[in-house]
């Protein structure tokens, strides 16, 4: 088992390095002068030269990459051109927003998807099952940003129950939670639809096995068998998907924050694109990619915990 964990950790670190190299190359080596991109076509030669000096563009590419990675490892992502503060400060300010949204979306997804998926499996080939399958088919096809707009139309414009967007900070926790309700639903629905289907088919697979029949025959209630015996055994495929879904939720916040005007990293990345703030975009893209890679790594490790057979084999 330790060998397995060591190998996966080494792979994880290697992947992060390659990802950083890809991000750096796309942002720095592709044709085009970053200084010109940032300052625009009407910049003076002196200003361009000064910015090139500040960005270290006069150094060889490899040296720039090494110093970027070295500094990033110490939490230094350079200075943002548009905000004129360290990028790490911008990230620290906005990270809580993005994380709260992603975590809320994940909880929403798990609660909805596991209940619907197990419920549908329990009613296999009955109306409830078909209903869940139909709703999830539609749920997968609905773009999150359109769902957001529909939710705003209904709950903010028509019913006026919830705010249409914006976030006033955590000083008023009730108001803060209220502004997160619609974004959480919009973010979670698509992932719930996907996960509900996986949960259903995985549970159906387990329900066919002998030990489930034995458990029922020994007098355990249907509900107890479903939640205590079927669900734990159906978890392996579910966890694989959940890991990928957490990654999808985190990148999904980029879209949702822009629909609801929430001050998180996703909104920052778009402000930085329109301000041509390359160091900030580069840091944020790296951060998001790192979260995706980390989520997959954690799933790999979780396998060993969930499926003891893997422990013996590896």
């Amino acid at each position, binding site marked *: 088992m330790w060998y397995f964990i060591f190998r996966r950790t080494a792979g994880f670190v290697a*992947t992060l390095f*390659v*990802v950083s190299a*890809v*991000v750096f190359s*796309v*942002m720095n080596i*592709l044709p*085009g002068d970053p200084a010109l*991109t940032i300052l625009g076509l009407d910049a003076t030669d002196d200003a361009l030269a000064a910015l090139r000096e500040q960005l270290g563009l006069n150094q060889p590419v490899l040296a720039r990459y090494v110093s970027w990675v070295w500094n990033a490892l110490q939490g230094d992502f350079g200075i943002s051109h548009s905000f004129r503060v360290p990028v790490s400060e911008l990230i620290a300010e906005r990270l809580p927003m993005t994380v709260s949204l992603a975590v809320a979306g994940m909880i929403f997804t798990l609660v909805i998807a596991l209940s619907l998926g197990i419920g549908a499996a329990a009613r296999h080939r009955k109306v409830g099952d078909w209903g869940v399958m139909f709703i999830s*088919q*539609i749920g*997968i*096809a*609905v*773009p*999150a*940003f*359109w769902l957001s*707009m*529909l939710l*705003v*139309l209904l709950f903010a*414009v028509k019913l006026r129950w919830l705010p249409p967007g914006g976030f006033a900070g955590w000083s008023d926790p009730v108001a803060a939670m209220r502004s997160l309700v619609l974004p959480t639903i919009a973010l979670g629905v698509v992932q719930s639809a996907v996960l509900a289907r996986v949960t259903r*088919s995985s549970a159906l697979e387990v329900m066919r096995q002998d030990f489930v029949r034995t458990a029922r025959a020994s007098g355990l209630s249907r509900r107890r068998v479903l939640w205590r015996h079927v669900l734990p055994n159906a978890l392996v495929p579910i966890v694989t998907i959940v890991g990928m879904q957490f*990654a*999808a939720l985190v*990148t999904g916040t*980029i*879209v949702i924050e*822009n*629909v609801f005007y929430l001050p998180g990293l996703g909104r920052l*990345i*778009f402000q*930085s*694109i329109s301000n*041509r703030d*390359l160091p900030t*975009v*580069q840091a944020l*893209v790296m951060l*998001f*990619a790192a979260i*995706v*890679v980390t989520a*997959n790594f954690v799933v790999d490790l979780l396998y060993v915990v969930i499926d003891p057979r893997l422990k013996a084999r590896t």
Partner: protein
Amino acid sequence: MTRRLPVNFILGAVLVALVVGTAALSLVWTPHDATQMAISNKFAAPSATHWLGTDQLGRDVLSQLMAGARNSMAVALVAVLLGGSVGVALGLLASALGGWVEDGVMRLADLGFAFPALLFAIMLAAVFGPSLTNAVLAIAFINIPVFARVTRGAANQVWTLDYVLAARAAGMNRFAISRDHILPNIAAAIIVQATIEFAVAILAEAALSYLGLGAQPPASSWGRLLSEAQTLMYIAPQLAIYPGLCIVVAVVGFGLLGDGLRDMSDPRLSRER
């Protein structure tokens, strides 16, 4: 005995025919010029001349949706063809050569999963400015690892079959076998995947265009129509409804068609689910 077609295949085919037909029709005919403005006639209600009314600039909504269908289909087609060809080629190569080449290609594919289309499009937009070409490239890029994996998995199975062994014994080289024997036998799996990826590509294009990273004005795109409608939600909520419905119809259509094709190519699967 005729085999009954799966329900999802029929439903999917009808929806896809509707969307593709509309897109094709828009090439030769739309009720009005999709970009023709008439400010005096803005926010017109549905009528005999404007079936779905007009938008904030007096443009015909139906014509814009039709033009949007054309753009969505074009983007999805180019992106899936581009990413699919590269991915299939890499998958075939990995399967044919095995060893470190296979390992290398599969690790590269893993890496591709670290970059959702949105992140890739953001990088391209930051460096080159937002454009439809960058959106297509970003969507094509995320298709490469998907197709590489599917192709390699399916191809590895075919490589173990007797007739491939016979072809090798007859002295055919690995590339010729890949082209003449492997590819035709895994085509079904690739077509199924392509249909599903088509749906994914439509969603991705809509999201990128909505965020301003895809189609640029005056090009019509369902995603862009939605982003324009967002600011007008209090005045004209209907403008936010139609483009979204079009996206859902197209995505459900291609999704069902893909599922149906898979059920037909492997009947065991349809019984399982």
